[in-house]
């Protein structure tokens, strides 16, 4: 499949291949997913739902593990910092 999907990461439109995960959209946008308890910017580590570094808000719902959520057209993704 070469079709692409558009989502918004922190308000910015990002285009990804259909079948991509939200984590990939965040990475592609250049944003980091979250800020740690001592203020470090963090991006995903494990790619399989165990490290919890990929948590972002998707369509208003916070703390979603983005590496396990597929992008859907017009999704609103907000990173935590």
């Amino acid at each position: 499949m070469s079709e692409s999907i558009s989502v918004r990461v922190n308000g910015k439109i990002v285009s990804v291949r259909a079948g991509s995960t939200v984590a990939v959209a965040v990475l592609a946008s250049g944003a980091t997913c979250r800020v740690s308890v001592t203020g470090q910017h963090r991006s995903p580590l494990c790619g399989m739902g165990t490290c919890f570094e990929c948590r972002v808000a998707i369509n208003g719902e916070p703390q979603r593990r983005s590496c396990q959520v597929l992008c859907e057209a017009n999704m609103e993704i907000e990173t935590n910092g």
Partner: protein
Amino acid sequence: MDSVKHLRFDVAVVGAGPAGIAAALAAADSGRTIGLIDDNPTAGGQIWRGAYNSARPSASSIWFDRLNKSAVQIVRGARVFHAAAGELAAESDDSVIQISYGKLILATGARELFLPFPGWTLPNVMGAGGLQAFVKSGLEISGKRIVVAGTGPLLLAVAAYASKCGAKVIGICEQTTRPKMARFGLKMMLIPDKAAEALRFAYNLRSIPHWTDCWPVAAFGNRRLETVRISRQGQTSEIACDYLACGFHLIPNLELPRMCGCRLRESFVAVDEYQQTSVSGIFCAGEPTGIGGLELALVEGEIAGYAATNWEDRAKHLFAKRARHQKVVRILQDAFPLRPELKNLARPDTLVCRCEDVPHERLCEHASWRAAKLHARCGMGPCQGRICAPAAEFLFGWQIDSVRPPLFPVRCSSLVALSSHSAPRN
């Protein structure tokens, strides 16, 4: 409040990677009802991630094809967080799913071992399998500079794959010794199906430098990774790169097997020749019984599927094939032991627990994992110690404590759904 769905299967399989898919399909031959439960949006586990919907043919295509044509019910996006006798509880985005089963096959796979070193928490430092997972999930790496580091055959697979996707893989930093690496290559060649694969790897990787006795010492960067410092046979050097794909081989996902009461042998789930665990009616296949790669996972899965549906003859027919691939387990153990230098990579201020930002020096104050957890908070974050506990085990020799529900963080409302579960076993 959540809705609660009730599903019932003759055989429930947890984990839709190769072992789980093979188990489900073998079990489906019996005509019984089979459920295949996985927390990802599509089947495939790690090694076949993203391949399910891919139009490009691959090794997994045949399996996915069979899965699609079978009567196996795939329960996607469902994270199992509790097990009681004959029942599992899983959480999905909008509901709790209570799954009752006659037989259970656990194919929960493995995850990477991460060892802390200065800068390992920088964005774009990922697991080796982690980077591969992201690429398979749509990450574009064409033209990106990548250093692959850590240990184990996964590094070769990741390097080959990344290279195929157009990345510039600058080198593979393998911590094992040159002789061990050479022996690994030779031994793998002697396993029938592996020889061709080994040659293919060697060809794909021919232009990528492979360094043994080599490991990452530190990662640097402003807001994300910019440079990796590696140690190679006593010398350090720095490599500018976009991604560091670093993982120190695989560790089995034992949380669900342990919650089910399955006995362990040498840190893996103990199973008999039919892949049955110490708990009658519960089977286990794939990496949790021993890290042995794809073919072993497939044949173990098949055996478990047949055994769970009382088709011992078919299972027996696969014993010889399993024995051949079982050799991989020992080969990997011999080839990639972790060297003691890796214990000294972390500085006092290097974080060990990423969820709670607990540095190495705080863990040093304690004599056990439990004490470190209570006093320094490591392992108290949402990953429940999945990332930091194995590192702490390696660094300090600690035994990690018992497993308690929920196996993953779940909505508080999901815990209420457990009230109908039977009392704990043992």
